[in-house]
């Protein structure tokens, strides 16, 4: 059998068999799929494969190069970890959707043309929404519909951009576009929605925390990182992205500080981490692109680990509201430990994955002389430690004792968290393993005494700030509340406007019908008299009279003209 087939099919077709299998066989099957997909990527030589014709164009279903491979590897690793994490569930509905979702993301990463990209782009939307629906509550159902609308809108923009691009250039290939290419703005907007650019971001914080325990972990890995990949492929070196990314790193952390739902806190910090990657794409140098890919790689792992630990808390304690939790380290010591590893990784502590990947992006910003951007990234680095590194473990597992006593997470969840934690530490301790997968050769040395010291200073003094604010009571308490964000515009303002419009139209109809009721009869009489049989306005005039009037008008016009 030829190995030249799309890797995505292993997961997508494999997913279709899941409902027909039972128990241990199904578990083994689901575990085998990502392992097979990973092995397939390992043996695929670089190049372009599977190129069917389509309306006179050539599609490229399998473009294997260092950029797509790096994302392919981490997507299959994440799939395996997520499968292990969700093994305790017997919900084929979610299992099929999750595997097909991972497969679609994989397909999109290896797409060499805009049409294939579009098809997989939409597939990720329709498969992933099931993971929110599967919560089976009214609240989740509504969030899922909002999520789906936004995702499909992104797909439509991508298709429109692809069509414009094709008409102008005659090509559907997906290579470096930049903002100058035809249709490029539409495509950038499509990518920007999926990447949760500022003001386009709120679908993420709205939907992810409403998904199932396992669904959120799946969602956190693929959609937004696919968008990061697409940006790195199509818009590397687009300077505007530096500013967009810098804003992205900074503003979500303010929300993260005051948000009560800890999975929503993680969604805000996910948004903030995407900002670092977008800055890397914007700078666009080899070091910066390496940074983006490396950070996406380690981010998928530590973010999954954090979402896994909060998922375990949701499963066992029944809530992830910071205001209701605390003291869970007594019941869930292992989950606490794994969460702290994830927290240390996202905070970029030395010896953890974030340290060796984020440094590439900050280094690239410094090399390029982007002083303000660098300072914003430094601020965001301190902030991310504050809300993800400290707030998440502190309010869930420590703080005041909530007296919640529950069981430790199921064994499969602990295994998944353990493996993810090992990878987070492994990458941090042995960065070359990751650096070797990056698109460009790496000369960067993360472990210098200066880098370790400055990073420890940044983090420990942030911890000091947290401690001081806590001891002095200045730290804002966790409150049961929602905070207004961009979704207000479509969840409150738009329905309110529709409401106002409905009221106005109703009132107008009422007035109109009353007026017509009163005036109707007399008005009809007047109309009958003037326009009815024999009325002055319904008389027929002879052609001669008309001709006479016209010649008189003409004569008057001529006279006026000469005067």
């Amino acid at each position, binding site marked *: 059998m030829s190995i030249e087939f799309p890797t995505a099919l292993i997961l997508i077709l494999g997913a279709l068999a899941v409902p027909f299998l039972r128990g241990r066989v199904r578990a083994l099957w689901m575990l085998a799929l990502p392992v097979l997909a990973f092995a397939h990527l390992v043996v695929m030589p670089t190049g372009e494969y599977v190129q069917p014709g389509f309306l006179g164009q050539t599609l490229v279903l399998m473009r294997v190069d260092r950029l797509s491979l790096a994302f392919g590897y981490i997507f299959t690793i994440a799939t395996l970890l997520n499968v292990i994490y969700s093994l305790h569930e017997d919900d084929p509905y979610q299992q099929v959707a999750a595997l097909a979702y991972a497969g679609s993301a994989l397909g999109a990463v290896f797409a060499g043309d805009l049409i294939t990209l579009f098809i997989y782009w939409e597939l990720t939307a329709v498969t992933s929404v099931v993971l929110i629906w599967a919560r089976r509550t009214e609240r989740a159902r509504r969030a899922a519909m909002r999520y789906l609308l936004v995702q499909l809108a992104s797909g439509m923009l991508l298709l429109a951009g692809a069509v414009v691009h094709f008409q102008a250039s005659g090509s559907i290939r997906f290579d470096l576009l930049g903002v100058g290419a035809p249709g490029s703005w539409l495509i950038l907007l499509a990518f920007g929605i999926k990447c949760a650019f500022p003001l386009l971001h709120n679908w993420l914080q709205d939907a992810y925390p409403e998904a199932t325990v396992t669904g959120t972990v799946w969602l956190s890995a693929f959609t937004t990182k696919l968008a990061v990949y697409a940006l790195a492929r199509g818009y590397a070196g687009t300077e505007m992205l530096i500013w967009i990314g810098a804003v992205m790193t900074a503003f979500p952390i303010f929300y993260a500080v005051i948000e009560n739902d800890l999975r929503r806190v993680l969604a805000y910090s996910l948004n903030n981490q995407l900002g670092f990657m977008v800055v890397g794409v914007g700078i666009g140098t080899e070091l910066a692109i390496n940074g983006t890919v490396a950070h996406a790689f380690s981010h998928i792992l530590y973010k999954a680990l954090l979402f896994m630990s909060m998922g375990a808390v949701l499963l066992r304690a029944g809530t992830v509201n910071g205001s209701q939790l605390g003291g869970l380290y007594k019941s869930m010591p292992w989950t606490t430990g794994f969460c702290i590893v994830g927290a240390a990784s996202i905070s970029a502590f030395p010896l953890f994955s974030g340290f060796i990947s984020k440094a590439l992006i900050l280094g690239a910003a410094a090399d390029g002389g982007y002083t303000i951007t660098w300072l914003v990234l430094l601020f965001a680095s301190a902030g991310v430690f504050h809300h993800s590194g400290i707030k998440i473990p502190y309010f869930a597992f420590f703080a005041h004792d909530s007296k919640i006593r529950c069981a430790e997470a199921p064994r499969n969840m602990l295994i998944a968290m353990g493996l993810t934690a090992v990878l987070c530490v492994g990458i941090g301790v042995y960065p070359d393993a990751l650096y070797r997968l990056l698109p460009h050769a790496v000369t960067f040395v993360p472990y210098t005494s200066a880098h370790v010291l400055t990073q420890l200073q*940044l983090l420990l003094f942030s911890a000091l700030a947290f401690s001081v604010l806590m001891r002095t009571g200045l730290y804002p308490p966790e409150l049961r509340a929602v905070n207004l964000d961009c979704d207000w515009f479509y969840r409150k303002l738009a329905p309110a406007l529709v409401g106002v419009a409905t009221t106005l139209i109703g009132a107008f109809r009422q007035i109109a019908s009353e007026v017509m009721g009163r005036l109707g009869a007399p008005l009809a009489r007047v109309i009958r008299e003037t326009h009815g049989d024999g009325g002055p306005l319904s008389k027929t005039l002879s052609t001669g009279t008309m001709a006479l009037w016209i010649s008189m008008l003409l004569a008057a016009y001529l006279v006026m003209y000469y005067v």
Partner: protein
Amino acid sequence: MNEGKTYWLDRKENVTIVYRAVWAVCGLLLLVDPLVHKHEAFGFAEWFGFFGFFGFFACVGLVLTAKALRRVLKRPENYYEH
């Protein structure tokens, strides 16, 4: 599970020990600062303890700003439900 057990962190004085330890580690990190040769791209980043002070004030600013933002942004938990 472990109903009656008292954990180390349950005792207030131990939390104070942790708190003081954070201060101590920060002090230590400042002490070794002059011993490490820095090679930052920006001159100001090589000032004594720059990263430490930046981190401290960034976080205090972040939290206090976010706290103030709550006055504008906070709504009841069921705000979107009706």
